């Protein structure tokens, strides 16, 4: 069922069993799990079925610290959410990502990877991925040309990525949601405040507003916030009428530990021969799987570094690549990320030629987790948006560990290529000096907003528990990457969907 909240009579009361706030990958994954059940699901989307500039502007906000993408264009505010400009990169987190690592402060989830594995498998069809197989040998048996660059060694391994088409959740699930008898989708339903009971032990109601000047109330037995890591934190912080620091924020943790992956060019790989590196290269729309070079848990522990990977692209192709921090500069998400017809055509041609002739020089791109850092955070600005809600403000802050880890990764890769006698690694200028703490101007993230309502069994160190329930509030849950404790080296969407399915199962068991 589909209702445009602008068409409702002012001050309508909407009631249901479960209310999901946000219709992106997390919210829609949960909603579809509840389709055709006896439960009345209220699905609230702040935007419409398509992009709407006025609604998108609600995501505008300032940022300080390390340069970041414009907040307004770094996530999308309409049905389907940020899947609307998602790249489709998927991989699982590693076992180590869930463990407490002595050398990384604030690391350690209250769940293990094994707890998520069944949900990774269930997430695959949702994201239109192939078999849930992340062992390279599975793919190598199917294609003998998928050859590993390095022999087995104790430091570097091949981590598998799979690629979604990518799935646009709005397009894929829009009709099913509209046709559903028990999912009630309300568009233009921006939640601006969560009100709790007294003495603030459960959510009582939500206030929704829209640009038609209408305000409605939603009541549900259980509420799931699935608005993304910036908006989840913003909404909790802005719900400060009863709790001055915001709901779920007794320990001043909401909004803290904002993380993104650092994604940037870092080194060159020189081979003495031309090689198409079929196991490692990626062509948009064609590649179903590839590997990236990952560092073993033993080496991460020995060198006390963060988890990161290196992906390869031929130097020819990389030379026409503009770093995301240089190309993703507009507030308008529709103006970013489009290389233009000729540039796109050139990149595809180069990719085609390199794939067939092979290349001997490759650019190595890093994707590395950011160390959890309480000072890297979302707060409320003093400026309100047109619906009267304080705008989000980001202070993105990196630590010396990211830089040292990145450099160490390439030294380890260089050692392995040298030991195998198959290549040499050359660091880019900015990584040459181990004592230089600065970042080049193209240092940037991957549009992965992570960690603002982190998970912990202890309310003093996390906002939600292992079941994604907000500590201290019996019926408020959070879905999505804001619950991540660390980000690993993998793009977050697959884990977002897996974690959401796990939350959904948990709620179903509660009845």
């Amino acid at each position: 069922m589909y209702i445009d909240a602008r068409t409702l009579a002012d001050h309508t009361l909407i009631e249901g069993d479960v209310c999901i706030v946000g219709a992106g990958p997390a919210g829609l994954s949960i909603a579809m799990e509840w389709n055709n059940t006896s439960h009345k699901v209220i699905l609230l989307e702040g935007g419409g079925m398509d992009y709407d500039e006025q609604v998108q502007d609600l995501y505008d906000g300032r940022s300080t610290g390390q340069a970041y993408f414009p907040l307004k264009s770094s996530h999308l505010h309409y049905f389907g959410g940020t899947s609307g400009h998602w790249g489709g990169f998927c991989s699982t987190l590693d076992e180590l990502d869930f463990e407490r690592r002595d050398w990384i402060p604030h690391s350690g989830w209250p769940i293990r990877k094994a707890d998520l594995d069944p949900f990774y498998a269930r997430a695959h069809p949702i994201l239109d991925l192939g078999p849930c197989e992340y062992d390279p040998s599975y793919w190598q048996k199917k294609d003998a040309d998928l050859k590993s660059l390095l022999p087995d060694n104790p430091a570097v391994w091949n981590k598998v990525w799979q690629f979604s088409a990518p799935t646009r959740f709005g397009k894929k699930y829009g009709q099913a949601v509209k046709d559903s008898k028990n999912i009630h989708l309300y568009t233009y339903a921006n939640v601006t405040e969560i009100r709790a009971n007294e003495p603030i032990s459960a959510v009582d109601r939500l206030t929704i507003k829209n640009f038609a000047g209408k305000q409605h109330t939603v009541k549900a037995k259980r509420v799931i916030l699935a608005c993304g890591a910036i908006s989840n934190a913003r909404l909790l912080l802005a719900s400060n009428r009863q709790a001055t620091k915001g709901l779920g924020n007794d320990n001043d943790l909401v909004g803290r530990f904002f993380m993104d992956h650092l994604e940037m060019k870092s080194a060159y790989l020189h081979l003495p021969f031309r090689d198409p590196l079929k196991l490692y290269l990626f062509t948009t729309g064609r590649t179903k799987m590839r590997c990236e070079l990952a560092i073993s848990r033993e080496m991460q522990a020995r060198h006390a570094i963060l988890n990161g990977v290196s992906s390869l692209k031929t130097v020819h192709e990389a030379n026409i690549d503009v770093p995301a921090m240089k190309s993703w500069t507009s507030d308008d998400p529709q103006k970013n990320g489009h290389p233009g017809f000729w540039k796109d055509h050139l990149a595809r041609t180069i990719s085609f030629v390199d794939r067939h002739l092979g290349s001997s020089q490759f650019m190595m791109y890093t994707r590395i987790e950011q160390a959890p850092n309480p000072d890297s955070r979302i707060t409320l600005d003093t400026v309100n948006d047109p619906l009267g809600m304080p705008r989000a403000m980001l202070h993105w802050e990196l630590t010396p560990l990211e830089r040292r880890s990145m450099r160490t990764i390439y030294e380890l890769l260089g050692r392995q290529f040298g030991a195998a006698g198959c290549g040499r690694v050359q660091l880019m200028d900015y990584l040459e000096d181990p004592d230089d703490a600065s970042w080049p101007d193209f240092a940037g993230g991957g549009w992965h907003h992570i960690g603002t309502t982190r998970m912990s069994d202890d309310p003093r160190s996390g906002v939600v528990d292992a079941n994604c329930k907000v500590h201290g509030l019996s019926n408020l849950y959070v879905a999505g990457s804001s619950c991540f404790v660390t980000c690993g080296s993998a793009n977050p969407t697959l884990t977002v969907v897996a974690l959401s399915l796990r939350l959904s199962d948990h709620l179903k068991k509660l009845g």
Partner: protein
Amino acid sequence: MKRRKFILLASVGAVAIAIPVVMRRRHHHSLAAPLGQPDFLGHICDEATVREIGDAYCARNPDEREEDKLVSLLIATSDGDGHRAKNPAKSAIDSTRVLRQLDGAIRDDYAAGRVVTLKGWVLSVTEARQCALYSLSHQ
């Protein structure tokens, strides 16, 4: 008689000392060329880059900034474990063998973490010395 004997003995002694030194220097010079040719790097980068790497190594290790010193170190490396051979001149007669052994030593360097980062290149100490030798012998 005594003077004649002294001159004779002194001459014999001088020759006895000079011959191995000269031979060794000649041998070093004959090896300097092949030893100063980093084989793998020669396939993936140009001469200017090899010299840049070599210059950077010399700048960081001024005590090794001599051709003879580098040749000795490379010959010693080729004889295993980085220890000087008992008879370097004899063991290094076959330059082909030395180069083959150096290739093994380079791989061992990488495996053992005996690496240096010069001009961004993550290199084995042995091949960095080869670059340095190349640079010095082409000045």
